[in-house]
Every structure is written in C-alpha cells, then in structure tokens.
C-alpha cells in the first residue's frame, strides 16, 4: 500500500460521511481533521469512540459537521468544548447522546457481523429514552422479568486515526489503543495517518503484531509526523496542554476561533509542525 498525501486522504471522505474518531487519549488524527477542514468538508456525521475531544470541536467550529454521536465532548483539563457547545446552542448540529459502553458495544456488534448486542445498565436513563433505535427486551435466558437493552450494530463509513507506524503492506501499529482496532474492524474503511514507515512486515514480528491492525481493514495511509499534536501519542510525545488551553480561550468566540483557524490550519502550519 503506497502512502498518499494527507490532502488525498482527506479527499476520500465525501461530504455527509459518518466518520468515527477516537478521543484525545486514544490516537486521534488531528492532522487528518485539519486536512478535512482545508478541503471544506461539509455535513460530516462524527462518532466519538466513545467520547470526543479537540478534533471534533475544531471540525464543528469549521462548519464541517452536521451531527455528532458521542458520550461526551470535552477538552479535558481545558474544560468544555466551546465550538460544540455553541453549535448545539445555535441549533447548527444534531447531537445524539450515547454512553461510552454503548458505543463500544454497537461497534463490537458491527465488528462481529451481528445485527445487535445486549448491554446491561441504561434502563432508567434518559439516554435510552431518547434513542428510539435502541430496544429493550426481556432476557430470554432468565425466568422472565429481566429487561435488558439491545443495541444495533453501527458501521461508520470511515475510521480516522493516527498510528505510530505503517509497513509496506498497509498494516499499522497502534499499540495498546485497541479501540482503534475495533473502529477499524467495524468501519467500512479506515484511513490512517502515521508518524513514520516501518521496514518489514509488522504482522511477522511477534513483538509488534499484538498492537498491529491488519491491512485488511486499512484503505489508505498518509505520512503525518506529529499527526496527533496537540494531543499525546503513546510514549512518542506528550500532550501540549498549553496549546489546547490556548485553543479553548480563542474558541470561546466565533471570531477568536476563526483567527485561530487561519493561523493554525493552513498548509504552512502543517509543514512547520513536521
């Protein structure tokens, strides 16, 4: 699999696609999110797996997003997600609230190719009350009177994330962040940015194979050094808390966000990062 440019990878995601993104602690491709902003993507339906962070707020602020399905949107220690909050208040996005294990479960059902999976809990929560696509049945293995929620399989059109490395076969290494594997398995296509290329086949190295996602699931790869910045990438680099706090301050207003965007989401800024 030949690496593409970041811009080519972003071109593969059509307007209106359902795009799954891992949160700030689990290898989001901030580089690819920025490329989607540069290509002026519109109407994306984002899925937070299981929550959403910096990349989601930035995409919402840039007008790329029609809908967010997630269990929470937050900038962590930097507080609430300002562009998400503003867009919800102004009715510019639809928010489908879920709860973390429900998102994992819907993706696991898709990964397994079954139409649904059960999950305990949830009954009595208004999340369930606002999800007509979720069903409650009586557990067929109990004596009766044991309600349990069934969640439908969810297959995003795309999984986007940032991995440490890719090999020539298109296998990518995400280490312990196996939610990326679940998203890749469940999605119709995974588009992955990586820090660097790896010589040799990741799946043939017994030390690296356990953290590898097979090329079977990977549709496209682009090199994007520091592609998770400002969030952390395993032991490769830490989170730039000051940068995120700066974003949170700037994005309090529409004007502040637009200025931030003009400064930070440009091809020049991308080159400076690399």
């Amino acid at each position, binding site marked *: 699999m030949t690496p593409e440019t970041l811009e080519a990878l972003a071109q593969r995601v059509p307007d209106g696609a359902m795009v799954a993104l891992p949160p700030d*602690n*689990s290898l989001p491709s901030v580089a690819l999110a920025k490329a989607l902003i540069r290509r002026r993507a519109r109407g994306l339906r984002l899925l937070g797996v*299981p*929550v959403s962070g910096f990349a989601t707020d930035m995409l919402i602020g840039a007008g790329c997003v029609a809908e967010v399905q*997630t*269990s*929470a*949107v*937050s900038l*962590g*220690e930097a507080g*609430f*997600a300002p562009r*998400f*909050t503003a867009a*919800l*208040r102004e009715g510019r996005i639809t*928010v489908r*609230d*879920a*709860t*973390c*294990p*429900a998102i*994992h479960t819907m993706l*696991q059902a898709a990964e397994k190719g079954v139409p649904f999976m059960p*999950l*305990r*809990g*949830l*009954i*009595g*929560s*208004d*999340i*369930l009350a*606002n999800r007509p696509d979720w069903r409650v049945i009586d557990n067929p293995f109990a004596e009766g*009177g*044991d*309600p*349990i929620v069934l969640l439908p399989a969810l297959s995003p059109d795309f999984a986007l994330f940032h991995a440490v490395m890719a090999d020539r076969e298109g296998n990518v290494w995400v280490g*312990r*962040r*196996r*939610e*990326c*594997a*679940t998203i890749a398995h469940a999605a119709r296509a995974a588009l992955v940015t990586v820090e660097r290329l790896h010589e040799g086949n990741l799946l043939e190295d017994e030390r690296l194979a356990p953290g590898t996602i097979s090329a079977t699931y990977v549709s496209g790869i682009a090199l994007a050094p520091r592609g998770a910045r400002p969030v*952390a990438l*395993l*032991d490769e*680099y*830490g*989170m*730039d*808390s000051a940068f995120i706090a700066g974003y949170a301050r700037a994005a309090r207003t529409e004007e502040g966000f637009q200025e931030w965007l003009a400064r930070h989401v440009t091809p020049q800024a991308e080159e400076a990062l690399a």
Partner: protein
Amino acid sequence: MIHPEERLAAALARLILDPAAPPARHIAVGAASPIPAAACWLVRKSGHPVRLSLLHKRSGNPFTEGTRELFDLTGQGRIDLFFLGGGQIDGQANINLVGTGEWPGTEARFPGSFGSAFMYMMTPRTILFREEHSPRVLVPRVDNISAPGLSAPGVFRRGTAQALVTGRAVFRFDPARGRFALESAHPGEDAASIRAATGFDYDEPAHLPATPDPAPEQLALLRGPVRDEMLETYPEFCARVFGAAEKKDAAA
C-alpha cells in the same frame, strides 16, 4: 495550611475505607478527576492493598483492550467502586451530565454522560463527587437523567450511591429511602449554610459534626508520594494544590 482539595481527598479516602460498605478491591477513576484520584492514591499509599485503574493515565494505563476494558470489567462485576459527578444531582441521587432544559441540553449543555448510565448501575458502590455545592447543582429534580439513582424492581443493578461529597459537606445516601442524610460539614459551614446551598431536601442529624482535617501523615502522603503518582496525568492540579515542584516531564 490545608488545601480544600486535600480535605476532600481525605474525606473520600474515609468513605472508600468505610468497613460497613462492600469491599473496594478494585477502584476505577474516570477522566478529569484529580481529587478522587488523589483519594485513591492516599488509600493505597496508606498501605491498603487496592488495585487502581486510572483511565487517563498515559503511561502505565492498565487496559490493553482500549477503554472498552473498563466497561467489560465493570460488566463482570470486577470493579468495586467508581466516582461520578453531575452538572445536576438531585435528592434521589439521579445525576445529569447532559445539560439543562430540554434534551439534549438546550439551556446549558454539559459535556455529556460518559459511561455513567452503565457504571452507576453495574458498580457495587458509587461515590458522587462535585465541588460546587449550590442550588444550581443540587436540585430537587434533575432536568435530564444521565444515570438514575435508583432502579425499578427487576432491573439489574449492583449498587447505588454510597455518599455525595461536595465542597461544603458530606452526605450519605440511603437507597431504601431514596434520600440523602447530611453527615458532616466542612470548616466554615454549618447546618443552616448547607441547607441554604442545597436545592433538594435531606435528613440532618441533631448535632452536625465537622468534616475532619486530614491527619498529618495523610498530608505528608498527599504532598509526597501521591503527588508523584499524579504529576503526569494532572500537572496543573498538582502545581496548584500540592505546590510547584519541578515537573518530571515538561511535555506531559
């Protein structure tokens, strides 16, 4: 000087070690929860053999199945205690992390429910924790239920809230009565000030004790070994509460 956060950590540690409650062999602590994390480390550094799973610890994150593993462990009944907060918390221990006004938070939107709708029902014990103690947060009835304080008979549920700890007081929750009882007030507060700051009704003892200060050895642990464990995940919190020691990892 005792920081309010240190007192809260010590109060949480006492609740964790409550001998009347189900055992806490494995405690999970969610994202952006420095005070509960400090309480857990305080329990552990005090010599109690408890397993801690800290969700947002970058190095040494305990999970290798991704974040799904926390929920799987909890589904199995292997997590004994979890902490939850709430943009609103009501007198029946319902919590609202979604927002006020109509669903999904048309007045004031909070970040979202995270795993609460599952964790609250699948964990034998939950400690509710929210620093802000005001009629805005502690309401008669939450606008939206992220996770219910009680469940109808027949609905699978392993436990309920054990207590609610705020910046002003400690409440105990009685699931049989579906009602909180005030247990202690932090220094500077009294029965009347708590009543005024609380939007829901609750029981109150004739004589209201003060929430105790952390013992000197607890303060020493918090400011030494506990701080060291927390520095990577919560650098700003550590600097603010435990003082500005040099950061081990400038990037973190």
